[in-house]
């Protein structure tokens, strides 16, 4: 079987298009590259959607945590502590069984027991909490002069937030937020190892990598391939976020611009 044929059969296997059965023997490099790559579709999906939705919730939470009103501050603080203080792995498990129980109460929760929605919700809340902490830190370090200048121009309320506070917060938070995005993409690898079943063996990249490692008893091929894909993904994230960072900093003189410093990736 030629490699082109394999790519045709398996490149969209993770979303259920193409060959139904996974290869059982004669694992070639091409098989492994194609299937693990096909699994990356899920990693990208989880990461991208959770990051996009999480961004808005994170902004709200950061504003809440910085608020002087206890009514807003306390819930935000608790939300952030809850999701930052416990392992994502346990959160996945808990959420899965919670949704299972809720399903029997109301059929509305039916889709939540599937990974595509249930795990997404967990990742969404999780990244919102982590990003909110980053945004909160940035919110506190907005130069006093900027806000005073906004006041002097007569800006207040929503327009002050939109034109001064929010852009500055984003600019300051962006390097940290880039790291958060990288972590998030990497933690998507946990999804199918934590209760959420891979329906019809449609799993993510790690799911397929461990499938191959199990079948061939040789971890030295699938995991480096997985690493290769993740490094590629990380490079894409870095370049996209670097582009945004440039845009956020474009009004500043060259030498005061903030560079993105990549910090180690950590488990959550």
């Amino acid at each position, binding site marked *: 079987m030629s490699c082109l044929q394999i790519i045709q059969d398996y490149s969209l296997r993770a979303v259920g298009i193409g060959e139904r059965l996974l290869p059982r023997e004669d694992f070639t490099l091409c098989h492994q590259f194609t299937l693990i790559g096909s699994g990356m579709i899920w990693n990208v999906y989880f990461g991208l959607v959770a990051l996009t939705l999480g961004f808005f919730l994170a902004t709200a939470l950061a504003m809440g945590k910085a608020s002087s009103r206890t009514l807003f501050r306390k819930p935000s603080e608790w939300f952030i502590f809850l999701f930052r203080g*416990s*392992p994502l*792995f*346990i959160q996945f498990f808990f959420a899965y069984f919670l949704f299972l129980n809720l399903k029997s109460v109301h059929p509305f929760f039916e889709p939540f027991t599937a990974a595509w929605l249930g795990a997404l919700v967990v990742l969404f809340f999780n990244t919102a909490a982590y990003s909110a902490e980053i945004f909160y830190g940035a919110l506190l370090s907005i130069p006093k002069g900027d806000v005073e200048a906004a006041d002097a121009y007569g800006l207040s309320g929503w327009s002050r937030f939109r034109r001064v506070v929010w852009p500055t917060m984003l600019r300051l938070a962006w390097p940290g937020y880039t790291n958060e995005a990288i972590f998030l993409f*990497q*933690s998507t*690898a946990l999804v199918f190892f934590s209760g959420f079943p891979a329906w019809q063996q449609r799993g993510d990249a790690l799911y397929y990598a461990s499938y191959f490692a199990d079948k061939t*008893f040789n971890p030295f091929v699938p995991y480096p391939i997985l690493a290769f894909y*993740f490094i590629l993904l990380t490079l894409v994230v870095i370049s996209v976020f670097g582009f945004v960072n440039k845009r956020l900093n474009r009004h500043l003189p060259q030498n005061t611009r903030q560079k993105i410093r990549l910090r180690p990736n950590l*488990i959550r």
Partner: protein
Amino acid sequence: MACYLTTGKHMSIYTSVLTVLLLLGITAPIALAFGFGGATAARSQITPLRWFGKTYIALVRGVPDIAFFLFFVIALDQAVEYLRHKVLCPGWEAPIRQGNDFVVCQAAKMPLGNAPQWVHESYGFGLAVLTFAIVFGAFAANVLFGAMRAVPRAQLETAEAYGMSQRQTFWRVLVPQMWVYALPGLSNLWMVLIKATPLLFLLGVEDIVYWARELGGTKTPRFTDYPHGDWRMWYFLALLVFYLLFTRVSEIVMARIMSRLTHGQATAGGEAQRKAAA
């Protein structure tokens, strides 16, 4: 209720909590040692050693840790068996890698096939500790590397001016001063390490995640005196609370250590402490 919570199976979940604490207790110092070694290697004068240190840090940081966890355990296992095979069975003709199979002679199996159960378990645990130590060692190395560079240059120059040798400068001036710079990073790592412990489950150790799934599952009256429905949700809720409490306590302890370490240091924090005292 009290009876239910003290059945034999429940005793094993409590032991597995201890396992987690034990893992943390053993891994943290080893990872710190790895980190210290890595950081010293990365700033060594000897070029190959420096390359080794830098590669170690860069390699482990670039890849999702969970992939490392899955990879290292099998890789370490096979490496140990391969070495033992070479030493113990010199007369063995057949190739070790037969296609996709990994075959070593009986005497080289690790642990031995006839070893008691606890040896198998503690061997798995040992591999897990080593894996954690390698991964977290790289992060710690990165933190310590940064901390060593953060110690003001003037301090080291003063030490040299006093006629201290390189080694003396390192141990007497650099190392005692670097901790205050390293602590925020290290405490962060500690939090992450706490949160990484459930991954033990993936390494095949019967840890709290395993028991929570096991005990929470639906029980019929035929097998147990305490039948119940699907309680896994509540078991995982308990785990969630356990981790939250653990994190909170660690936060408080870290804040204490930080305020102690800052004492008398040439940093903004130390300055603030001095002003507050005066």
